[in-house]
C-alpha cells in the first residue's frame, strides 16, 4: 500500500469508529498527538498524588486516612495504566519521566495549587475529580484502543474518588461554624482552577479541531466546562455553599448557567511555571526518581545475577 492508501484506510477506520491498535498504520501526527496527550494525562495523575499526599499523615480520622491513602494510591495506578498505553506507541516510561523532570512535558496545572487545609481534600475530590471525570468519560471511547481501555479502568476506579470528596464536603457543611468556613474557603480557592482544567477556550485551543476529527477528543473544552458548571451549581446548593462567582445565573434561553470570566492570564502563567507550587511538585518527583535509582539498579543487577546462576546450573 502507498502512504496515500494507508491514510485512506486509517481515515476509514476513524470514520467507522473502529479503534486503532498499536500495530495499525497511523499518521505521524496522530501518534505524536496521542503520546503528548496520554503522557500529559499520566503525568497529571502522578503529580496529582502530591497535593493530596500532603494530608495522608494528617487525616483527621482513621477512616479518612485509609480512604485518602487508597485514593492517592489509585492515582499511582492510573498513571501506570496511562504510561503503559503510551508505551504501546513506542516511547518508554523513562523517556516520559525525563520529559516531565526537565519541564518539557506539561501536566494539569491544577496540581500546582497548594493544599492548605483538610477541606481541600474534600474540594479536590468533589471539584477536581469531578472535572476530571467529565473529561475522562468520553475518553473511554477515544479512537486509540490502549488509551480507551486504560480509561475504562481509570473511570471504573475513579467513581469512588468524587464521592469521597463530596462526602467530606457534606460532613463539613453539616458541622460547626469553623468547619463550614473551611469548606467555603476551599470551594473558593478550587473553583476557578477547576474551570481552567478543561483547557483554554475553544477559540484559542490549537489542538482541539484535529483531535475531535481523529476522535481522540469527543467534546470541546467549552462544552465540557459548561456541563461541569451546570452540575456543580446544583451540588453546591445541596452543600449549602455559596458560589464563588457572582455572575452565576441560569440562562433560560441557553438552558445553561452563565458564569463569570475566567482569568486566563493566571492560567497561562501557571502553565508556564509561575503557579504557587510548580517548582515543588517537579522537585518532589525528581527527588523520588533520583533517589530511587540505586534501588531500581539493584533489582536489575540481582535479576541478572540470578539469571546467570540459573543458566550455569543448566549448563552443568
Amino acid at each position, binding site marked *: 500500500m502507498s502512504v496515500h492508501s494507508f491514510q485512506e484506510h486509517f481515515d476509514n477506520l476513524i470514520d467507522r469508529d473502529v479503534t486503532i491498535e498499536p500495530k495499525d498504520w497511523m499518521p505521524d501526527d496522530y501518534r505524536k498527538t496521542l503520546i503528548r496527550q496520554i503522557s500529559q494525562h499520566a503525568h497529571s495523575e502522578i503529580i496529582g498524588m502530591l497535593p493530596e499526599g500532603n494530608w495522608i499523615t494528617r487525616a483527621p480520622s482513621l477512616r479518612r486516612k485509609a480512604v485518602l491513602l487508597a485514593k492517592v494510591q489509585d492515582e499511582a495506578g492510573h498513571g501506570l495504566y496511562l504510561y503503559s498505553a503510551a508505551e504501546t506507541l513506542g516511547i518508554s516510561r523513562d523517556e516520559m519521566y525525563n520529559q516531565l523532570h526537565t519541564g518539557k512535558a506539561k501536566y494539569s496545572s491544577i496540581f500546582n495549587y497548594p493544599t492548605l487545609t483538610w477541606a481541600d481534600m474534600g474540594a479536590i475530590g468533589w471539584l477536581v475529580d469531578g472535572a476530571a471525570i467529565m473529561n475522562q468519560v468520553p475518553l473511554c471511547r477515544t479512537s486509540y484502543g490502549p488509551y480507551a*481501555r486504560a480509561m475504562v479502568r481509570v473511570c471504573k476506579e475513579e467513581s469512588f474518588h468524587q464521592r469521597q470528596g463530596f462526602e467530606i464536603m457534606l460532613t463539613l457543611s453539616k458541622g460547626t461554624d469553623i468547619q463550614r468556613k473551611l469548606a467555603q474557603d476551599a470551594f473558593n480557592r478550587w473553583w476557578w482552577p477547576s474551570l481552567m482544567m478543561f483547557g483554554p477556550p475553544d477559540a484559542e485551543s490549537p489542538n482541539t479541531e484535529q483531535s475531535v476529527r481523529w476522535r481522540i477528543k469527543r467534546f470541546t473544552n467549552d462544552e465540557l466546562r459548561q456541563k461541569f458548571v451546570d452540575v456543580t451549581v446544583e451540588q453546591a446548593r445541596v452543600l449549602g455553599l455559596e458560589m464563588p462567582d457572582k455572575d452565576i445565573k441560569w440562562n433560560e434561553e441557553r438552558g445553561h448557567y452563565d458564569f463569570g470570566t475566567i482569568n486566563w492570564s493566571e492560567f497561562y502563567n501557571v502553565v508556564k511555571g509561575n503557579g504557587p507550587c510548580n517548582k515543588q511538585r517537579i522537585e518532589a518527583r525528581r527527588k523520588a526518581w533520583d533517589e530511587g535509582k540505586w534501588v*531500581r*539498579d539493584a*533489582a536489575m*543487577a*540481582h535479576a541478572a545475577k540470578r539469571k546467570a546462576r540459573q543458566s550455569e546450573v543448566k549448563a552443568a
Partner: protein
Amino acid sequence: MTNDKLNNSKNEWPLWEVFIRSKAGLDHKHAGSLHAADAQMAIENARDVYTRRMEGVSIWVVESKHIQASDPGEADSMYDPASDKIYRHPTFYNLPDEVKYM
C-alpha cells in the same frame, strides 16, 4: 555486568503483559502491563497493581517482547475467509422440534 555500567545505562525494568483470571473456571484475560525486574516481581506487582479490588484469583505474566502479534495489514486474508463457513456454527443445522437437547 559491572556497577559502573549499570549506573551509566538507563537500565529500565522490562515491560510485562499481565493476564488475570477473574474467577475460578474462567479464561485469563489481558489486564494491562507493568514494569518489573524479573518474573517473580512481575507477578507480585501484578497482584498489587491489578487485583486491588478483588479482580483476580490467578495471574499470568509474560515479558512483552515475547508476545508475537498478527499483522493488522493481513487482517483480510487472515480472518475474512472464516466468514463464509457458517456450517461451523450449530445454528446452521435444522433439527425437528421433537429433538430437544442437542
